[in-house]
């Protein structure tokens, strides 16, 4: 590893000031699981300064607010798995956190880091996208809130400008307890990159799908929604055949690549299966009343 500068930020404002001062010469350190690998193996010159945000209290923790469920960007995957609030109102996010890397990765790696590294196979992305999550970004000009979908620009590229910092993720109040399923398929069970991952959410009142959201990871340059599959489901009676068809439609919306891990064709097959299974899992999480109506 080549030498680099290091500053531990006291709070968000301190971190933003440092990021603004150093611009592209600065890198943010949260859990370090991605950054350290980058610093060791990247062919590019090392950053001028690593801004350590791991002690910024405002960016840590999970809390229910009037606006919804707020998760600080440096909350670890382990904390998400263990959170009784997450398990209660958003269990699919705990499912996703539970299959990231290995125990060691989950104990160090953070939600914000997973989103900001912005690899297409990120496991946190699909569930949050399927729940219309928003993100708070702090910058020299103050704070702004954008939909999570606008954060993702390309592989390892986000819409954040130099000097900006991801502070927290918010799932809006109206989507808490929305039935949601998450599925991941990797080449093995532990320490696996997703060949495909997916999440699906939908209300199922009166036996009909409403506000369906389907999100797919690792099959496009960024985590994407599957709008045609969503449109197919909206207003349709809840049935296994409808779930399977939504999966098949989502498979046509995916734009997977062929690489040494798997062919594009196989990834498409997996999209169809995983989307169906996400919807089945979501149905399993619908309240008893919703299930009764669905049957």
């Amino acid at each position, binding site marked *: 590893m080549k030498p680099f500068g290091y500053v531990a930020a006291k709070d968000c404002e301190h971190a933003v000031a440092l990021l603004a001062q150093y611009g592209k010469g600065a890198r943010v350190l949260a859990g370090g699981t991605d950054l350290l690998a980058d610093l060791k193996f990247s062919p590019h010159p090392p950053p001028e300064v690593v801004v350590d945000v791991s002690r910024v209290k405002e960016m840590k923790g999970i809390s229910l607010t009037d606006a919804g469920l707020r998760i600080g960007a440096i909350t670890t995957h382990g904390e998400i798995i263990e959170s009784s609030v997450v398990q209660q109102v958003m269990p699919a996010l705990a499912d996703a956190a539970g299959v990231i890397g290995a125990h060691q990765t989950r104990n160090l790696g953070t939600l914000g880091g997973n989103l900001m590294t912005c690899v297409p196979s990120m496991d946190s992305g699909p569930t949050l996208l399927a729940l219309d999550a928003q993100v708070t970004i702090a910058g020299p000009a103050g704070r702004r809130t954008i939909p999570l979908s606008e954060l993702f620009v390309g592989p390892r590229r986000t819409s954040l400008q130099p000097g900006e910092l991801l502070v927290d993720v918010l799932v809006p109040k109206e989507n808490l307890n929305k039935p949601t399923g998450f599925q991941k*398929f990797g*080449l*093995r069970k532990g320490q696996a990159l997703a060949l495909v991952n997916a999440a699906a959410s939908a209300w199922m009142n009166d036996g009909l799908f409403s506000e369906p959201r389907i999100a797919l990871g690792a099959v496009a340059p960024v985590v994407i929604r599957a709008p045609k599959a969503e449109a197919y489901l909206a207003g349709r009676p809840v049935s296994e055949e409808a779930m399977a068809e939504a999966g098949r439609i989502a498979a046509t919306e995916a734009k997977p690549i062929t690489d*040494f891990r798997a*062919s594009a064709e*196989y990834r498409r*097959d997996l999209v169809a299966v995983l989307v169906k299974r996400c919807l089945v899992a979501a149905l399993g999480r619908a309240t008893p009343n919703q299930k009764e109506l669905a049957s």
Partner: protein
Amino acid sequence: MKHRGRGLASMWYPVGFTGYANPSGAVVKINEDGTAVVLTGTVETGQGSLGVMAQIAAEALGIAPNDIHVVSGDTDTCPMDTGAIASRTTYITGNAVRLAAERAREMLFDVAAGMLRVKPDMLEAKDHKIQVKSFPSRNAAIGDVAYKAYNDVGTPPIGSAMWNPPMIPMDPETGQGKPFGTYVYATQIAEVDVDDETGEVEVLRVTASHDCGVAINPMLVEGQIDGGVHMGLGFGLYEEILFDKTGKQINSNLTNYIIPTTLDMPDVDEDIVENYDETGPFGAKAVGEPSLVPTAVAITNAIYDAVGVRITALPATSERVLAAIKAKRAAEQKQIPA
């Protein structure tokens, strides 16, 4: 939908090199306090072989494994060993250690015979004592005998030995010969679940029955079987070296050369079938490499039992299994008369 299947595979495996000399040497020195030092050229690679060498020397000398200090792998001081390869260490190095210990013990018997007023061939070494066979109350502590050998009789008890497995070279006219000293045998059964939508194979359980001769250290034998099943699982389902067009390896690190993790490991039921081999040290043969030989075949047979497809190229990745399932469905569709 998941389908359960079971598959079985059996194997035999030779111990040591094929028809070539592959000797091991050993030196055993009994100390004045009744402990001993073993010099061996073999190296420990994590399998516990030096512990087995200590057990073999201790058994031959009638003392405890903790009384043995093993010096290994130093080519300046240790006798030659062909290597920790070919599943040969327990069988071949073990025989050299056993013979060297017995030679050192003979020197102790000569000294003890005078002390106990019997012929040396009436003695045995047991429980830290040299004792008269069938009359164990007539005995002398090994430490006392060794001390006397060093300081009174003047015959420090040191034994050395070489051992090379008994082989007969191939007759070029008939093609006949005896290429190995001995062989081991094993059968493994794999139980799997195959997901017919993704092709994913989950190995739930492997039962591994291994003839390893006499198991000198059963816990180490079980550990070897566990490790072999892990490697066999990788061979069967995950591991593949991939090259680009210029011949450069694409997946040259452990993030993309996929080996099974602990989460992928099945329950392993290790079953040791003890089978005394008269050419091995205290009847022992081998278990190292053989433990992985049947695993991949048992798994692919289990896949066939579960979903009716034969996987003929390893690893049986999810993608390959799903492709085989699809091809089978397509073939069945064709056979349905219009």
